Structure formats: structure tokens, C-alpha cells
């Protein structure tokens, strides 16, 4: 091996292999050596060198593109003949995984590679508000395993994993993301109602852990003279942020006036179609308008 030759270590070991082959080629070209080199004939070696050079050039252009900021489309990473060194294969796979996660970052999903596998981060959001993040740490081996996670215990993670983790990884990630976003969205609405509109509530908001059942009593009139509405919102689908069942009733004794009944019907529709705090914001506007009107002499 010519010692004066500088080793060029590049992104992949291909160039290093190439150098070795070239050096070996040079050595076997010298007539004085006793070594004959491998059994392959000269033409085979030449063909191999040409192939590797072609591959090297392709990879160089790809590196340049990557550095220029362009994203390498995953489909363009062509399969090539596996080299003796399987480390290249693994590196290619890691690059592919990185690009995959970069693309998904916009959907609130991101991942980091760890020593044994990958840690997926689920960033949840609702109506433009960034909410909590949850992590799932996976060990890549057969079968795929969840090492640890920060998903709340009432999210059916085991069921989702049992269904999709082995068979369809993308679907697993997608389904879990939907559940987490659904939960975050419902929790956000419940928190907003509890903190922002407590003036309307006759008694504190009641909820269960998943926020799939919300129960509260509210009045339109701050003085408490009007008949209260007792609302019960049920979210049958764990991935939605709008209720599937809305029931508004009157808990007291006696008959309710027709105006109350009308309001009840209107409110029920509102709760079906809008986020909880938005409905109460509209109530607030109605109340403010009413105050404005009534204060006019």
C-alpha cells in the first residue's frame, strides 16, 4: 500500500474500498511482486472498479443535493449490490429512517434514533394550540417492542400495539397519534371551560380520565335566576374532539318554559358542532350584547 497516499474517508466506506482496490490493482501491476492477488481476472476487477466508480459518483451527487438542502426522496435510494461490509447497508437504512421522520415532523410526529431503536415523539395540538408531547421508545428487533413510553395509562396503547405494531408500523403510529390528539383536544376544551368560563358553571365540571364523558350545569343568566341547563357530553370515539352524544336536561322540579326548551335545542346543536370553549365564548358574546342592550335607558 502506498503510504504517501492520503486516505479519503467519506460518508460511506465505498471510497475507502475503492482506494484499497485501486492500490491493490497498482500493486499487482508491478511485475516484481510475488503476490498474485485474488483469483479474479483483470477484466473482472476492471469491471468492478467501473461499477464502484459509477456508484461513488451517484453517491457524491446525492450528498451534494442533501447538503444543498434538498430532501432525498426515499424512493430514489436505489438498491445496489450488497457490499461485503454490511455497515453500509445499516447506514443507508438509518438515513432512510431519518428522512422518513423528517417528513413526518410536520404532522406532529418526530423521531430520534437511539442505541437500540427509535424514540417517537407525538406532539399534540388542537386548533393551532400546541399541547402536550408524548414519547414512545421502541427497540428494533423481532418482534418490535415498546421499551418505555410516556403515554397515559388510560390510552389503550396495548390494544393499538397488539393490532398494528407488528403488521403495519405506519398505521400504529397514525392510530396512536389520533388517540393522543383526540385526548389532548378534549382535555384542552375541558380545561378551557373549567378555567375560562367558570362564571357560567353552577357546579364544577365533572370528567373522566380520558375526557370522554363531560358533565356540567350552566346558566345563561349570571344572577342565577334563569333555569339551569344540565349538559352531558359523550365522546364515543376516542379519536374525536367533538361529542357523539349531547344531552341537555333540567334537573329540578316543575315545568320548563318554552323559551328554555328553544334554547336547549339550539345549545344541543351548538355542542355537537363546535368546540366546547367556542360555544361558551358565543354565550359570553350573547350575554355581553344583552348587557349592552339592557343598559341602554
Amino acid at each position, binding site marked *: 500500500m502506498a503510504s504517501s497516499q492520503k486516505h479519503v474517508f467519506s460518508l460511506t466506506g465505498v471510497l475507502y474500498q475503492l482506494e484499497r482496490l485501486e492500490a491493490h490493482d497498482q500493486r499487482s501491476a508491478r511485475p516484481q511482486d510475488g503476490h498474485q492477488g485474488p483469483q479474479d481476472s483483470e477484466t473482472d476487477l476492471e469491471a468492478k472498479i467501473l461499477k464502484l466508480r459509477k456508484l461513488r459518483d451517484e453517491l457524491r451527487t446525492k450528498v451534494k443535493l442533501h447538503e444543498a438542502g434538498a430532501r432525498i426522496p426515499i424512493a430514489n435510494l436505489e438498491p445496489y449490490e450488497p457490499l461485503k461490509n454490511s455497515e453500509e447497508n445499516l447506514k443507508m437504512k438509518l438515513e432512510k429512517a431519518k428522512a422518513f421522520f423528517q417528513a413526518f415532523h410536520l404532522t406532529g410526529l418526530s423521531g*430520534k*434514533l*437511539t*442505541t437500540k431503536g427509535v*424514540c417517537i*415523539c407525538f406532539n399534540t395540538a388542537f386548533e393551532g394550540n400546541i399541547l402536550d408531547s408524548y*414519547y414512545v*421508545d421502541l427497540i428494533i428487533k423481532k418482534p418490535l417492542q415498546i421499551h*418505555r*413510553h*410516556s403515554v*397515559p*395509562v*388510560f390510552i*389503550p396503547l396495548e*390494544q393499538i400495539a397488539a393490532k398494528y405494531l407488528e403488521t403495519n408500523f405506519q398505521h400504529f403510529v397514525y392510530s396512536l397519534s389520533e388517540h393522543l390528539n383526540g385526548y389532548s383536544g378534549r382535555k384542552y376544551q375541558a380545561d378551557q371551560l373549567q378555567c375560562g368560563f367558570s362564571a357560567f358553571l353552577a357546579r364544577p365540571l*365533572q*370528567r*373522566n*380520565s*380520558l375526557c*370522554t*364523558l363531560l*358533565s356540567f350545569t350552566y346558566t345563561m343568566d349570571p344572577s342565577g335566576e334563569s333555569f339551569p341547563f344540565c349538559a352531558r357530553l*359523550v365522546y*364515543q370515539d*376516542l379519536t374525536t374532539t367533538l361529542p357523539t352524544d349531547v344531552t341537555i336536561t333540567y334537573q329540578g322540579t316543575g315545568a320548563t318554559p318554552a323559551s328554555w326548551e328553544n334554547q336547549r335545542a339550539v345549545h344541543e346543536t351548538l355542542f355537537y358542532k363546535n368546540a366546547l370553549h367556542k360555544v361558551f365564548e358565543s354565550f359570553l358574546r350573547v350575554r355581553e350584547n344583552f348587557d349592552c342592550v339592557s343598559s341602554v335607558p
Partner: protein
Amino acid sequence: MGHSSVIGMDEIVAEFIRRTILKIPVAEIGKILRIWNFIPESQLKTINLKQCKENVSQDVVELCKKKRASMKEAAILDIIYHQTCQIKKIWTVYKMTKAPGEEVDLSDMEEFKDSFKKVLQRALKNVHISFRDSEDTAVWIRIAWGTPYMKPNQYKTTYMVYHSQTPFVFISHCRIKKYIPELWQALMTAGNYHKIQQMELRSLYLDSLKAIVFKQYNQDFQTYCLTSLEEENSEVEIVDPRIIHENMKEKERIQRVTRETFGDYVQPRIEFAQYKLETKFKTDPKNGILAEREEPFRCLVKFSSPHLLEALKSLAPAGIADAPLSSLLTCIPHKAMNYFTIREK
């Protein structure tokens, strides 16, 4: 002496309230009474908290008598006391499982409470059941046990904490153990579960148990990536660059391994871990009579500490143990166990 509404407050209730107030640390009495919200604020202000506790509790009892407190309200006061103060009671964790194929259900807490109460009262005479919701969507259930011939004993109570839509229940038992089957039945019927099992996890600290079981500790996933781990700069006391720490590399390795095992944050607090060994005694086959025993050598090893997991975490950095520690010690929070039985493989 037993008529409550005609004469005034029941003497039993009065005594119970008096004794409960005596148990509460003086600093917390005002806070707890306010949370209880039974005595109006204006009257609370009249209580002089600086006098001796006996007098404070008498004053409170007098105010309660005016409002005719019943055992129902007194039970709530007891629950609030348990929720607020660190009570020296061991909490055990139980895990419930649903029948296979059952989906996550809606879990209406009101229905749960109704159902639980009905089932338990149908099975047993003279049980006094109280509920109080806590902020984290959990319900505290207080049960005072009686017999068909005796009214419930308000001083021997069982506390249960249940978070909706989770399979875990935290129970702090009094010494009455014979009604456990009825308790399980009520719990499983109300929660729509199929089976209940005791976990090998016990501690004085309910919050730590929750943290372990709900996996709320040590969730710093953002730095959990080997490539971004940076060694913290140890304090540079030595100014002269010719002096180095002899075992710097080893020290750094230990720090890294400890960090990977335990994470950066404070561990949940438990006070003991117990290992029951049923393994054969391993020694040189020629030496000693113990070597020839066929039966396993039974032995109990118990680690105690005011804060066991933090103590374990500091063992390797202190140089007392090798890093990494035995997985039997480090698996405690991950496996949610602190009682182990080790048998021959």
C-alpha cells in the same frame, strides 16, 4: 344519646370530629376546614388556632354542633385529612383486568359510585361508604366497616383511590381483612372488570406509587438519545493543569451508566424492597455442609431507606457499588414491584 336530628348533633359524631381535628397538625387545620367548607368562613375566623389543640378541637366541635353535622360530613372531613396530610399507612396497589375483547368503556364516575355503593351495601350490613373526588380525576372511597349487630366503626376504615379508566386501585387497609371478597366484587362490578390481582408493590407514599404505576417519573425523553448525551463538567477545583483526576474515565463511565439507568430526575419515593430468595446455595462443592443441600436455601433480604431509589442511584457514584447495578435493584420502577421472589431458574 343516639338520636341525631331531634336533640342536636350525635355525640359519636362530635367525638369523631374532635379526635380527627386532634390528629391534624396545627398548621393544616385552617386549610382543611376551608376545603371541607362545612363551617362558614365567618365562623372559622373566630377559632383561635394559637391555643392548645384540645381547645381548638373543642371550638370546632361547638361550631359543628350549631350546624348539626352528621357522620356523612364528618366522614368527608376525614377523607380531606387523609388527602392533605401524609398519613403513615401502607398503600398496596391492585391491578384489575377486563375480560378479553372488552373495549375501553365510558366510565361514568357517578354510575361507578352508585354501583359500588349498591353492590357493597347489598352484600354487607352496616357499611358506611363515602366518596370524594380529587383534582386528578380520581375518586377517594372511604369505607367504615360494621357487622350486622354493630354500627360501622369509624376508626377502622379502609381507603381506596381509583382513577377512572385505569386498571389500578390503591388501597390502604385497616386491620379488618375479612370483607375483602365483597370489596372486590363491588369494585369489579362497578368498574366493569373481570379480575383483580394484588401487585407486588407497597409503600407509604401514595404519590410515588402513582408515579411508578402511571409511569409519570423520569420522563425526560428529550435527552434520551445517546448521541446528545454530554458529560456534565465536574467541579473544577484544581487549577493546575498538571494535576488530573486519576480515575476520571471510570468516574465518567459510572456517571453515564447511572444516568442511563436512573435518568436525570428524582426517583419515586419508596422505603423498602424485599427479596425472598429460594435458591440453592452456590459455593465450592467440596467445601461446607451447605453445599450439599438439595433444597433451596431460604433467605429474605430487605433493603430499607427513607428514600430507597435515590439511595440506590447514589451507590455507584459514591463508589460503594459497581456500575451497572444489578437489574434486580434497578428494575423496581420499571416492573412496578418492590417485593420479589427469586427462585432457581
